[in-house]
């Protein structure tokens, strides 16, 4: 829940190499700045971009984005912490997202959650010891017609059964960036 404050006493703001690299800055400057009348409006796309790059959003990244967009770091953190999709703590390579809303629950999504929980030996919200999987339950994924659904990183799997779930997990490549959305028949233009 976004409005529960987190303990940040031990937050480390890392030094060393900047996370918002020159090439990422160029993407923001060239692609996103012309789209909006204010720099702050680029915040959501910028957070998406960095999370895509690093798999999660270290405080350092949020701070560098704030600096680049000329807003206070607190403002950037305020926004970033509100949205569930932004991970302000590390997560596994693969995010297994089980929908738990009404239709999926009617279609036995709880079985899927329990199956994954047992298989990976984690509770929802936890990451496996090898940092490969993070299991979460989330609210409606907007695919109720094909419930129950599970989303693995950016790919949605519909009409999932426990057997299919095992197959899906077995077929995951070593590097998440090699994952292909089977629906896509064209080259990714980037988003």
């Amino acid at each position: 829940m976004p409005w529960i404050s987190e303990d940040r006493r031990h937050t480390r703001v890392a030094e060393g190499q900047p996370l918002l690299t020159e090439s990422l800055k160029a993407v923001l400057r060239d692609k996103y700045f012309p789209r909006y009348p204010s720099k702050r409006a680029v915040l959501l796309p910028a957070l998406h971009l960095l999370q895509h790059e690093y798999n999660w959003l270290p405080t350092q990244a949020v701070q560098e984005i704030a600096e680049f967009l000329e807003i206070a770091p607190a403002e950037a953190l305020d926004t970033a912490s509100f949205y569930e999709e932004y991970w302000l703590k590390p997560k596994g390579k693969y995010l297994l997202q089980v929908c738990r809303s009404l239709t999926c629950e009617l279609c036995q999504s709880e079985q899927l959650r329990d199956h994954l929980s047992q298989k990976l030996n984690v509770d929802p919200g936890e990451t496996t010891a090898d940092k490969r999987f993070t299991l979460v339950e989330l609210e409606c994924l907007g695919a109720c017609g094909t419930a129950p659904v599970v989303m693995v990183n950016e790919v949605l799997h519909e009409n999932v059964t426990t057997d299919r779930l095992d197959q899906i997990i077995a077929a995951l490549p070593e590097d998440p960036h090699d994952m292909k959305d089977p629906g896509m028949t064209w080259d990714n233009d980037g988003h």
Partner: protein
Amino acid sequence: MAFTEPVLTKRIPLDASQRKLIGYDDYVATGGYKSLKQALEMPPADIIKTVTDSGLRGRGGAGFSAGQKWSFIPKEKKGPHYLCVNADESEPGTFKDRYLIDHDPHLLLEGIAIACLATQCDIAYIFIRGEYHYSAKVLEHALKEAYAHGIFGGDGVLGSGKKVECYVHRGAGAYICGEETGLLEALEGKRGWPRNKPPFPAIAGAFARPTVINNVETLMCVPHILERGPAWFKTMGTPSSPGPKLFGMSGHVNNPGVYEDELGITLDYAINKLAGGMKGGAYKASVCGGISMGILGTNQLDIKLDFDDVRFRGGCLGLGTAGMIVMNEHTDMVKALRNCVRFYAHESCGQCTPCREGSNWMRKILDRILDGDGKAADLQMLMELEKTMGIMPGTTICGLADGTAWATRTFINKFYDEFALRCPEAPTKTIPLKVSSGRLNVLTPMGSNTR
């Protein structure tokens, strides 16, 4: 009333294996972008009049007249105007916009271009929810094609000099951004906290400029209305709710999915004719348009699915997005309500106390009832809380809490026996309820229609 052929889904085959993404060439070959050329030759006021005359009501939930909404935008332009397309489809039971975008994105882009011409908007932002990764990629791809063919950018729409830009803006997983002012805040790079109104978005919306906010399906109706006229549009649906509508059927039905028909079909027709009948048992209840609208009970199969009948005879908040979650006789209504309330407790943005605390309180009570520790006071407390949160009692900024309230109210009213059974000592019929304001309200459960 006559619905003879699919309108919004005319390019999408019913057979799922035949469906594919309709690209620019296929779209134009089947009459696409014809309405846009027509719109270019019309003064903006005429486009707005045509849409108003058609009686098109917003498909995002509220059912407000689309033409009227456009007419609120100042005619005299003193700076940029914006169009925000609400594709933040997060209501449980709703998946129609994804279906439309995934298959026929250019119909949306044509609707956007026409809406921009009508309201003199310079930039359109398609606000799509973060979880719709594939749909966002589809839109990016379609936009690239549309830019290449001069629909957007360059020398204006099809070289007319009226320049419109269109961008995809991805949300990041917050139901509240489907609320129009929450959406604007998220667009501006802030947390998605709904704004107090007035000022209304038509006067000061995105970046404090006049802004139109329309649902995906609403905009997709527009090219068809321009092409075939308001009179044709009114041949479908009911006099107060004209036009075709997508119905999202899910839950315990044999063929769940998105079906297009006209407004005003009965729930019975939607379940048995469109969705292939009940699965696993007889009909018990159905969410009537996303869980915020509440549920229709066992004896309400004859309710007409339009913007009014669901409200006045059905006892729900409205038709909403026409996402039906159908439940069979084996469904545990207490558990189903717990699921709904947990959703609101999780998605409350935290701005208003009645919603933030109330929904969590309700979730805890329902958890307790489910665990077998329900008491009479629990049920009474649920009903008191439900009465005190939302825009209607005037205690919150946006309508999220009204969703919580209506879901709870209709579940308890229509299936009172089931709740009373789990809360020993609860009165079986009428509960005199003292609301904190001191007024005495008498709640009459709508009857024991559960068995």
